C-alpha cells in the first residue's frame, strides 16, 4: 500500500500481560523502524529492520521487547509482561533509502496507543 498501516489503533493491557503490535510498511520499502513516544512527546528509537534482518536494536529493552519482520507478513513488536511505563504510543515508519549516500524520507504510520493498567 501507499501508507504505513498500524494495528490495532488502541490496545489496553493489564500489567504483566502480553502486547503485540503490527505494522505493514509501504510496499517496496525495505527499512522499517519502531519508535516509542511517551507522554512528554520524546521519540525513542527502538529497533530498525532492513527487510527481515535486524539492523539496529540499540534502543530495545531486550528482556521484554522483541520484534520481527518476516517475508509476506506484517512486522510485529511484542512486549512480554507489560509494565506501567510501557504505556505510550508506538509508531512504525518505513523508508526506501536512495542508492546514493543520502537517506530517504521515513513515512510514519498513525501509531498504536498502548495503555497498561
Amino acid at each position, binding site marked *: 500500500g501507499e501508507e504505513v498501516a498500524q494495528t490495532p489503533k488502541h490496545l489496553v493491557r493489564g500489567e504483566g500481560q502480553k502486547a503485540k503490535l503490527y505494522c505493514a510498511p509501504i510496499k517496496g520499502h525495505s*527499512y522499517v523502524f519502531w*519508535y516509542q513516544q511517551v507522554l512528554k*512527546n520524546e521519540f525513542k*528509537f527502538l529497533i530498525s529492520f532492513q527487510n527481515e534482518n535486524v*539492523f539496529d536494536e540499540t534502543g530495545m529493552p531486550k528482556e521484554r521487547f522483541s520484534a520481527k519482520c518476516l517475508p509476506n507478513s506484517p512486522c510485529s513488536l511484542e512486549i512480554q509482561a507489560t509494565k506501567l511505563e510501557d504505556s505510550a504510543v508506538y509508531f512504525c515508519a518505513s523508508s526506501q*533509502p536512495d542508492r546514493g*549516500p543520502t*537517506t530517504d*524520507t521515513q513515512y*510514519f504510520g498513525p501509531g498504536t496507543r498502548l495503555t497498561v493498567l
Partner: protein
Amino acid sequence: AQSVTQLDSHVSVSEGTPVLLRCNYSSSYSPSLFWYVQHPNKGLQLLLKYTSAATLVKGINGFEAEFKKSETSFHLTKPSAHMSDAAEYFCVVTINSGGYQKVTFGTGTKLQVIP
C-alpha cells in the same frame, strides 16, 4: 555520532505573525535533515526535507527551512502563522553510512498560535 537540539520547547505567536522554530544538529557525516509536524493525537507528517540539494527548502503549508552548515542549523520558518499551525514540530537528522540508516529526533517544539 549525531545529535539534534531544538532550542525551544514551547513557542507562542499571534496569528498572522512570523514563526521561527530553531534546530541545531551535529553529525560526523553529511546528514539529511527533516521537519515533521504532529497534531494532537495524530501521527507524524513530513513538512520538508534537506538532502544536500538547495540549502533553502520549501515545504507544505507555507513552511520553509534553511540549511546553514557553518551554523549547523536548520531552522523552520513561516511568514504568517495560521491557527491550524498549532502543533508539535520535530527536527530529525538521519545519516546513511554504508547502507546503515541512523535516525535521531529532536525533543520537539510545541507551537501555540494565539488568535
